[in-house]
């Protein structure tokens, strides 16, 4: 029996008002791919920050290869052989790939011909990278490769990966898994943080499940189902969104015809000839890798960016291509942007003020130029109550809410305005499983009530769960759309990567729609 590579015992970390980690034990063996599983706020990030030396714990100890160690800073962690790939990449946009890598490794390692060593590693692990490119010109997948190569250059013994696949295509995920399996075969331990249960089943040897800062269970992912792990994670039964039966789709509510848009950002994506329509009672899903025109499409649909051709966007029977957000709201459209703080809500403003900001037009919260404070507060309270937002009250600032709670609030705010069309971008990104299920259910209910729903998301499981038709956006062009049972995850993956496929021929494949339920 070999000694564990990493052993944690009784790790406790308190923040004012919260216990982020309570008496956590964790053991990782050499060559093991170990999943750390839990909802947002379960304490996974706090724990790995402790392992990587970003922050100290209040109690507990850590053993590295049988020896008790203190890791005061990330440099000490790297010296031991611990590498980490962050969820929000620790990269510098205005610097080159090589500079970014040099910054993340020790000065001794960065000496000499780093450039060619990067090329060597990236070639031998199939992680294609050009050391001289500037980071801001790279796709998200390429950016992740920088982080991985950065870790590999240090020949790590333990690699920590924080939600590594949330931004990748299915094919990119497959490539990453190949690299990880190969590393594991070479004896490298991997601590894999995720809430994507299907991936954990496929990749990991063991899983430690955390809830509210405590370890609740250890399990062998191969022997569990995605559902059973989700329930351990949430501590209650998972209610999957239910698709109401027998919805009749009605007249088109949102029609987009030959929409072209030149992006004002140098590195943005231009939209080319986008056409689609969403009928009332229908949910159209748009899949795609981040940075293929989703943000631009959202900006154009919400009216933040106007187009010259007024006829290219029609809400109900109104042409709105040249109309701003307020006019579009008046015409019956609602939107939920990707970025919750700063775009969906104003971080420092209270919930009722945030409710007022988007609801003023349709909820009639403005009277001769004056804010109807009582009416706005009542509206905000209604949102909090109906959508089960956890908050002490509507006088709290938006940034006091957790990601999932704030997203529920924003959704509630938009849905209670009774939109005939709603456009949402990445509705459940970084949202815990429970809130995500509630948000998806609310989209299904909204469609059942006759609204036209457009969901732009990178999460294919999500699209298969809610959408009636799925289209793919790639480099600013939109594909045709297919019902979820006529297209497979793999085919969508190819479309996302810009490869033409003909799903019609595969429509009778029994694997069609093979996604985790």
């Amino acid at each position, binding site marked *: 029996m070999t000694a564990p590579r990493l052993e944690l015992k009784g790790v406790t970390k308190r923040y004012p008002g919260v216990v982020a980690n309570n008496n956590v034990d964790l053991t990782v063996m050499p060559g093991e791919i170990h999943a750390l599983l839990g909802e947002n706020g379960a304490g996974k990030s706090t724990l790995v920050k402790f392992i990587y030396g970003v922050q100290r714990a209040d109690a507990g100890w850590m053993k590295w290869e049988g020896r008790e160690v203190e890791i005061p800073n990330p440099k000490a962690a790297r010296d031991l052989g611990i590498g980490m790939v962050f969820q*929000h990449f*620790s990269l*510098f946009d205005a*610097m080159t790939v090589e500079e970014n890598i040099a*910054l993340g490794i020790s000065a001794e390692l960065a000496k000499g011909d780093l450039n060619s060593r990067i090329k060597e590693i990236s070639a031998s692990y199939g992680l294609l990278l050009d050391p001289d490119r500037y980071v801001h010109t790279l796709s998200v997948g390429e950016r992740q490769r920088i982080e991985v190569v950065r870790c590999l250059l240090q020949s790590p013994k333990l690699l920590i990966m924080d939600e590594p696949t949330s931004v990748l295509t299915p094919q990119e995920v497959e490539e990453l898994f190949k690299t990880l399996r190969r590393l594991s075969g070479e004896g490298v331990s991997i601590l894999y943080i995720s809430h994507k249960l299907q991936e954990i089943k496929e990749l990991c040897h063991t899983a430690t499940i955390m809830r509210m800062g405590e370890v609740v269970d250890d399990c062998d992912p191969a022997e569990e189902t995605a559902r059973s792990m989700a329930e351990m994670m949430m501590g209650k039964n998972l209610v999957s969104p239910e698709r109401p039966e027998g919805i009749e789709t009605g007249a088109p509510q949102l029609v987009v015809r030959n929409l072209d848009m030149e992006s004002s950002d140098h*590195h943005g994506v231009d939209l080319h000839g986008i056409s689609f329509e969403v009928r009332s009672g229908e949910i159209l899903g748009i899949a795609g890798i981040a940075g293929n025109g989703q943000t631009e499409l959202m900006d154009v649909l919400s009216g933040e960016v106007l187009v010259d051709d007024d006829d290219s966007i029609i809400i109900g029977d109104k042409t709105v291509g040249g109309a701003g957000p307020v006019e579009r709201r008046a015409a019956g459209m609602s939107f939920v942007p990707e970025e919750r703080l700063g775009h969906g809500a104003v971080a420092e403003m209270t919930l009722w003020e945030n409710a007022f900001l988007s609801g003023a037009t349709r909820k009639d919260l403005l009277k001769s130029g004056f804010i109807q404070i009582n009416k706005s507060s009542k509206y905000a309270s209604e949102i909090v109550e109906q959508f089960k937002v956890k908050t002490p009250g509507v006088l709290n600032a938006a940034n006091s809410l957790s990601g999932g709670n704030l997203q529920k609030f924003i959704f509630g705010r938009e849905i209670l305005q009774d939109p005939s069309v709603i456009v949402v971008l990445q509705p459940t990104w970084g949202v815990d499983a429970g809130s995500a299920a509630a948000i998806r259910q609310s989209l299904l209910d909204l469609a059942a009530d006759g609204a036209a729903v457009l969901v732009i998301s990178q999460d294919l499981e999500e699209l298969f769960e809610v959408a009636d038709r799925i289209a793919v956006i790639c480099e600013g062009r939109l594909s045709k759309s297919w019902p979820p049972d006529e297209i497979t995850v793999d085919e969508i993956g190819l479309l996302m990567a810009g490869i033409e496929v003909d799903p019609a021929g595969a429509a009778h494949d029994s694997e069609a729609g093979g996604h985790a339920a």
Partner: protein
Amino acid sequence: MPEWFIPFLLSVVTASTPFVFAGIGELVVEKSGVLNLGVEGMMIVGAVSAFAVGVTTGSGALAVLTGAFAGAAMALIFGVLTLYLLSNQVATGLALTLFGLGLSALMGHGMVGKTFAGLPHLEFPLLEQIPVIGPLIGTLLLGHDVLVYFSVVLMIAVGWFLNKSRAGMVLRAVGENHNAAHSIGYPVNLVRLLAVLFGGAMAGLGGAYLSLVHTPLWVENMTAGRGWIALALVVFASWRPARVFVGAYLFGGLTIMQLHAQGLGIEIPPQVLAMAPYLATILVLVIISRDSALIRLNAPACLGKSFHATG
């Protein structure tokens, strides 16, 4: 060649050198992500301190060092307030300028009317004897005081430091994305404090140059807005040391022209020339703002944002 030409060039050099010091110092500060609007205040405190030490001891070297040290001391106040007590950088910088102007007036009270002998000049007698071009080259390149040469060395050294050295790379990284730098394990606020101190020392040096060389006497408020020009210069130069140097000579030339315009028969109101550096900066800002890629590559993304490590 008109006979006013060589003295004119000489005065451009002395007028421009303070801009080089203060501008390059502020460039390093801004590259680390800190906006210190107190350049004017640090300059004038540097000027009065250097002058006081110069007059009492008679030592130019000691005076120059004191100027730099005084500027750094002012910067230390700013650094502790903004980096560790998280006060607003813009407000604190403005306060530093106001404080510096008042403090220098108080310190310089007894020194009005005294003069200082100036700094030693480097002589190259052989080169100046080359016929015809000798005198011109001699005036342009040789025979200046040591600080002029130091300003050139500074420009090259800072350029090398920022682009070629690892420490410089860390400094840029801190200014580009302080959260990422922190998560990799770099001490964000310490890097910034060192940058701020360097910026203060250079502003103090620029001030010392004013009171020791440019007009070797103490007059209240003698920086007369040069600190603001140095700030504008950094943006004008889109955060590149060599361009700061060129810009400093451009703006220095403008301030001299402003003095001599009437004498030279140029019919431009002096107020227009006084405005020119700021107008040029606005123009450059407009031009580089048109292209977001240029901004992204040059302007430090975290400029003016306080860093507070969460957890």
